[in-house]
């Protein structure tokens, strides 16, 4: 049997996570090929239905990467994103999915190293959780 390759959606803030992805690319830091990035202008704009829809559409894991608290370009977008992720985690749990499949994290400035660590860590986490039971 081939090893399970998780599909992971990363909602990334344009101002920090995307900048970090750029720096990672330029400096040759690699992240797992299991990640599909969706750029958002601010993670505060991500709504709970987007997060649930990602799982419905086949994601095995979802990660939301925002700026550090206090560094959001729109002041409090990352606080909102964190709250929405927490709500979505409990909604997922009610529906029978492990809340650990959804993660909120942040990168300071264009912190390429942390960005890559988050994505690789998430890939390992979801690999050990196994496939999304609502899809496979």
């Amino acid at each position, binding site marked *: 049997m081939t090893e399970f390759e998780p599909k992971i959606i990363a909602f990334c803030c344009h101002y920090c996570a995307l900048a970090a992805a750029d720096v990672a690319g330029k400096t040759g830091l690699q992240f797992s090929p299991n990640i599909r990035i969706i750029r958002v202008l601010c993670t505060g704009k991500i709504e*709970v239905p987007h997060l*649930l829809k990602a799982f419905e559409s086949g994601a095995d894991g979802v990660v939301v990467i925002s700026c550090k608290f206090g560094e959001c370009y729109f002041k409090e977008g990352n606080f909102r994103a964190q709250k929405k992720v927490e709500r979505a985690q409990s909604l997922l749990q009610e*529906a029978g*999915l492990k809340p650990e499949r959804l993660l909120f994290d942040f990168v300071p400035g264009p912190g390429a190293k942390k960005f890559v660590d988050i994505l690789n860590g998430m890939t390992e986490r979801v690999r050990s959780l196994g496939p999304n039971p*609502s*899809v496979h």
Partner: protein
Amino acid sequence: MIVAERKPFSEILSMVEDYSRILVVGCGSCVTICMAGGEEEVKILSSQLRLAFKKNKKDIEVEEAMALRQCDDEYMNNPELINKVKKADIVISMACGIGVQHATAFFNRIITDKPIKIVPGLNTTFMGANLDVGVWEERCVGCGDCVLEKTGGICPITRCAKSLLNGPCGGSSNGKCEINKETDCAWHLIIERLEALGELDRIKPIEMYKDWRPSHDGGPRKIIREDMRI
């Protein structure tokens, strides 16, 4: 507005799990504003149902729809919505209890070839005001004979735990009600407001018992405006 909260997912699931085509219908007015049964909450509940059914390998269809007001025929008399209701085996209404009942009556009148089953997705909680983002509090119980002119615009029926007309009682302490430290004593607020208005004398006469006949308990109340009817 009418303020409601979504029912726990397990309760909703147990209402619908024996059906194969489910329609979730939101309401675009009060419950949209109090973030319990609007478009976003319809999407959330529908996603949760699909995820839960797929996990349990059940082949169930979940459709979504909206009505601007489920308490009014005018906003439900829409061919697309009626068609979706016809196709469904069960409908979850995300409106308040009024909407659930009105939609049940409406769709069973319009659709005659099969009975339409509509279940509530929300617990209708109170008539209240939006105090801050994500905060609502009860303000009126619809007593049918408003006394706010005597009480400085603060309702003693709703906001006093004992619905006293002559207050405060001995449980008022530092502006808070004896039921808990978070709840303002309504009569403390009334006295402060009347004092500011220079109308404290208003509460000197003993208020006699309230006429509760216009209130609930005598069956559903009804208003007919003859001038609006042809």
